[in-house]
């Protein structure tokens, strides 16, 4: 069969369609599988989060809870209603402080504590991660930060 212009064009379009369909499928699959959900300590208590599943937790670091032993850190974060103990090995960000908001990424351990693989604190002094602020507001524990 001789390939006409029409056939060629159809061939190209079909080829593009296949590639795009594969790409769309891939993106949807990755979105289902690779996204990381955010939880506050109270969410952790209420929702059944599987042990070992990668998640993010956020809250305010409780004053007096930060313990250090060499490179091993542990601290407690709170959303006003519940608390979660977080452990982290490494160097905490410069702006990590007790009383400030942080987000930790990692997974729950069987004992209910959270093993963080990374801890984020923002560059800005007055920064409160949006997720943390929303979670605290949702618990009705929000107090406006003091202006500077």
């Amino acid at each position, binding site marked *: 069969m001789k390939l006409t212009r029409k056939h*060629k064009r159809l061939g*190209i379009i079909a080829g593009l369609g296949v590639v795009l369909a594969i*790409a769309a499928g891939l993106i949807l699959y*990755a*979105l289902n599988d690779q*996204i990381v959900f*955010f939880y506050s300590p109270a969410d952790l208590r209420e929702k059944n989060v599987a042990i070992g599943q990668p998640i993010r937790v956020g809250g305010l670091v409780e004053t007096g809870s930060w313990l250090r032993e*060499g490179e091993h850190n542990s601290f407690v974060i709170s959303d006003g209603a519940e608390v979660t103990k977080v452990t982290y090995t490494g160097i905490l960000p410069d702006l990590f402080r007790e009383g400030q908001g942080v987000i930790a990424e990692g997974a729950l351990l069987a004992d209910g504590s959270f093993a963080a693989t990374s801890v984020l604190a923002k560059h800005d002094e007055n920064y409160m991660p949006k997720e943390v602020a929303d979670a605290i507001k949702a618990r009705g524990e929000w107090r406006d930060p003091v202006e500077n």
Partner: protein
Amino acid sequence: MAIELGHFALVLAVAMALVTAGLGLTLWRGAAWVTGFARQAAILQFVLVGIAFAALIQAFAVSDFSLALAFENSHSDQPLIYKITSTWGNHEGSILLWVFILTLFGGAVAAFGRNLPRDLLTLALAMQSLLVAAFGGFALFTSNPFARLNPVPIEGRDLNPILQDIGLAIHPPLLYVGYVGFSVCFSFAVAALISGRIDAAWARWVRPWTLASWLFLTLGIAMGSYWAYYELGWGGWWFWDPVENASFMPWLAGTALLHSALVMEKRGALKIWTIFLAIITFSLSLLGTFLVRSGILTSVHSFASDPTRGIVILSLLAAVIGGAFVLFAWRAPALSTGGLFAPVSREGALVLNNLFLATATAAVLVGTLYPLVLDAATGMRISVGAPFFNLTFSILMTPLLVVMPFGPFLAWKRGDLLAVTGRLAAAVAVALAATVIAFLLSGFEVPLAALGFFLGFWVMIGALADLADRVRAGRIPPGDSFRRLAGLPRSAWSTAIAHFGLGMSVIGIVCASSFSTENITTLHRGEATSLSGYSVTLASEQSLAGPNYDADRITLSVTAPGGMTRDVSSEKRVYRASSQPTTEAGILTYGLSQLYIAVGDPSDGGHVVRIWYKPFVLLIWLGAVVMAMAGALSLTDRRLRIGAPARKRHTAGAVE
């Protein structure tokens, strides 16, 4: 006084831009004076915004804290260079820099556009002016950089310490030149849609602007990545942070545009798609600058933001992007389709390139915006992090890299895949051999790295094979080949060099992500630890005072596997004005590899030390620099210069 002058100049520039836009968009078919007016006005806008920007810089340089912006973002103890860079280390100042570069490009179009058709030039300048009016107006009404304070504070609040780095002097201006340069492509696309003049010549005029923007964007992104790498102390060079994605999307779309404009220029095909890409690329640049600045997406880059601004930004983006797409939907069907080509051809390869780049752009866009959409729709809070992007991106890039070396070998219109494969057989063999050697040297640790190595080597060697094939190396005497090499058009050189650079970056990425090693430990003075054959000893610790900070400097002595010992220090700084701490990582470079050391706060008389060994990590950024250099080389190609008439090919080597 200078500040009021600057403020007034900005107001005048916006007014001037409004008049130019109004006049140009209504009278573009009209008399020659309209074009003359638009050209003069574009240059005048550049001068006026230049005055405004200079006034702002001057106020920062002399620490004039009667300027609210200088008070909030600068301190009299800062070294002069950081006083100056503080000008754009904040929302208002960075918007003014953005508008300044916008007028710079408008002025450049006016200055270099003498040979363009009058109607197209008028419309493009009018569109450019409309953008100046919109974003200059945005600066004036919602983020005025010239607001004054009374009474005048004695001291400023200091620039965020993390920004007090030479990176701030280089990264934002480069990146903004890249972002904003695409505004010229956008303006030309809109002008073409309005006037209906879309042909190969249009692609020829637009290509230099695309190239210039692309090369600055490439440098800007690479510089930003390196800055984040050495400054943030996490040892990573790319975090898939929303703002990184925001700069990466226009780069991907701009790269696609660069390639599709080539097809349009040479063959008159892909017109509608090229116009579409020109609009999309600048839209993504806008998204990059403003969505992140608006505080809608949280990111390490968002400046303290005012929520009312977000609404204005969104409306502005919707108006500019939406307006362009409405125009596109209305006018594009009227365009004639251009040259036909077989699926296997140079055009076909470039279409494939565009397909994968566009899909990758879409994947990044989905990953960046999905959390916003999900939050708005269901209230679920999620983050789409590195695993999503790494997975989708590597799968999308693999076929692109496999196909890449074939492209330059294929003939226009109809190519012979079998013959090309034959000519590339040697390159495949060399790439495979290099992969096997690299894999053996790396100790078989990461099987997937073999695929990455092959892709990188294949792209690099494919680029060299392209040059070799063009000069018929091995088929004619070597002397003749060298003569042909010198006679190759610069565009041929730049294609090969740019592809080679990409291969370098791929190899760097594979090495840095698969073979990095890491060690976290606590060291007391005199204690040593080791990593990948490097022995690191905590040698000394001293307190010192910088110009506006106090630091704890920890010096470590590092003995390389070869026995050579060098000292490196990492600092913990506390900036006096804000009492904000930062960490300066210690980095030692060995060839293309680096040893990266971050030191934590003292604990029990020792220091927590985190050490990374990153083999061949420098290739990532070197590759980007090579790509940008290739872009610059291509810009100097006479055939692509604006208005330069097509020269007859008399060099025998200039075979396409």
